[in-house]
């Protein structure tokens, strides 16, 4: 791994062994009331790998990822990070473990500006424990500029920003706080072609830096262009996990719609390299 890279995410991960599992979700289950949302699902992720998670609406993919992000409590099953079992009870727990999420709904407070949203929940403080607005402003401009050079209206409420700019704010959270594990839930759903390309480039860049990425997407083009492996869920269960290069689009659709595993294709729990 390139140890001369400037990014602190990369330097931190330079120590991480790319052949060692970053995240293991083991036999996770979750029910809301009597409805089983996730049923005994297992999935893993290696550093520098993109694992796409597919399935119908209500298949349980977002619920599974929200449990990893600490947004929902886990009913049963284990989360193992770097080989150690961990408890992710709140979003703050997840953040401490280096897990960042970019949600479909973007999870932005529309009434606050881009800077406030970037630091929301993790504001920089002065030595008097007050908000260090100027430092946050300066740092935010640096991160935003890295993603979009034309993004300067960082002090207007994010409701007035374009879909792409809002996505920049959401993604910046992952970059600024050095995510090791990134969950992207439909990151390109609301974006135009140019902005979609920007997200694609960013995914590749973060991958090179050793970040592990779970990508929830309905967009087959994104899935095949960006992912190393893909996992399909149906009715809360894991249908199968395959190396993306081993399966065809039709086979994936068959898994999503009918829940049937493609004949003669081997599943894999290791990254395709």
């Amino acid at each position: 791994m390139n140890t001369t890279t400037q990014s602190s995410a990369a330097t931190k991960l330079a120590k991480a062994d790319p052949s060692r599992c970053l995240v293991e979700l083991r036999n996770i289950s979750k029910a809301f009331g009597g409805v089983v949302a996730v049923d005994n699902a297992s999935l893993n992720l290696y550093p520098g790998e993109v694992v796409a998670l597919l399935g119908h609406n209500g298949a349980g993919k977002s619920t599974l990822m929200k449990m990893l992000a600490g947004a929902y409590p886990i009913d049963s099953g284990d989360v193992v990070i770097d080989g150690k079992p961990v408890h992710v009870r709140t979003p703050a727990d997840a953040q401490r473990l280096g897990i960042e999420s970019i949600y479909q709904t973007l999870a932005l407070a529309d009434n606050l500006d881009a800077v406030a949203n970037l630091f929301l929940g993790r504001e920089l403080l002065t030595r008097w424990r007050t908000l260090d607005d100027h430092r946050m402003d300066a740092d935010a401009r640096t991160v935003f500029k890295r993603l979009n050079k034309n993004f300067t209206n960082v002090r207007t409420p994010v409701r007035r920003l374009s879909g792409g700019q809002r996505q920049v704010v959401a993604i910046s959270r992952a970059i600024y706080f050095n995510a090791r594990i990134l969950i992207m839930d439909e990151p390109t759903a609301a974006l135009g072609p140019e902005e979609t390309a920007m997200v694609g480039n960013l995914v590749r860049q973060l991958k090179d830096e050793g970040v592990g990425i779970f990508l929830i997407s309905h967009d087959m083009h994104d899935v095949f262009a960006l992912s190393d492996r893909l996992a399909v869920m149906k009715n809360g269960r894991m249908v199968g996990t395959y190396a993306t290069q081993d399966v065809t689009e039709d086979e994936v659709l068959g898994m999503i719609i009918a829940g049937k595993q493609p004949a003669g294709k081997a599943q894999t729990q290791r990254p395709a390299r």
Partner: protein
Amino acid sequence: MNPFFQALRRASIDWRMVLMASVLIVIAVAFNAMSNGIFLSPENLYNIAQQTAVVGILATVMVLIIVTRNIDLSVGSVLGFIGVLIATLMYSYNWSWPTAALAGLAAAIAVAMYQGYLTAVVGVPSFVVTLGGLMSFRGAAFLVADGRTQPITNAFFLRLGGGYEGAIGTTASWALGLVMCAALVWWKLSQRRARRAYGVPTNAVWVDALMTAVPLVIIIGFVAAMNAYQIPNKAAPQGIPIPVIIWIAVALFVSFLVHRTRFGRYVFAMGGNPDAAALVGIPVKRVMLLLFALLATLTTIAAIVSIARLNAGTNSLGTNMELLVIAATVIGGTALAGGSGSILGSVLGALIMQSIDSGMLLLDVPIGWRYVIIGQVLIVAVVFDVVYRKATGELQ
């Protein structure tokens, strides 16, 4: 675009506040003309400032409650309950005023934790919780002293309510005014310095100068007006009334919370997008409970000012106060949908409402008409709010 307007645009001036201040000035000038100069006399300005203080104190925290998409309908009843409790402890049980006030604060926090727990933890809509509270705590205000009026006699305590001895005199008023002016200038300068140090674009010098000069003129004008009022049988002019100083201190403190602390940031984030607030790891329930604790503290302060002003605690203290407080907050530009509002707005809203009421009183408008008009002023404010938000793209 010419540089003048460009500089103004960049300065992120809150035009809504400018507009509201202009409305207040128009109201004042109009009433002054109609009342042959009585409205803007020092005596009337002194009375308006003093009368607005209690509603103004509560409106600052009501802004935050409404910003989080909640409401407190019980604030008037709780104020009555706490006020009577403090007065009773002092009069019927001979407690000293500080211990009675602390006991009142403890009771207010207990009430707030009960209502806050139901709202934030159990998830009962605050409208329902505080509607129940509106009735229950009015009853409690009666029960505390069995409906008997509890007079206040402590001379120091009475000064907290304003009135005859309730102002700080001319010298202290000027000193306070100058300290505030100096603090304002220092704050603006340090802001410019910090912005430059971090390479954040600064406003044009003349814009910042203007934004400093306007508040300076207001502070000096206010002190001058308060110092010009002399009660006829007193030897010296009044100066700033103590309840107004308490209101200013409360407004500055709550503004500080809003702009400079995590707590304030979280309150607005929770109002803007409750789901996002939870997803990014904001301790939503704890912030709500803290907000209720702040509400309890300010309600206690308002209760103390109220009973000191009335020279007594009575079981009707604070009746309908919740309506005036919510009206002041809404007139001040806080959206009932949550997520937006400002403390300065609540100050202006409370002043606008009190000025209209006081002006109509001077013009001998009958009480029925005064209610009719104040009610419609509230409607006008909300209509304006909706139109303004549509124009700025905040509402579709």
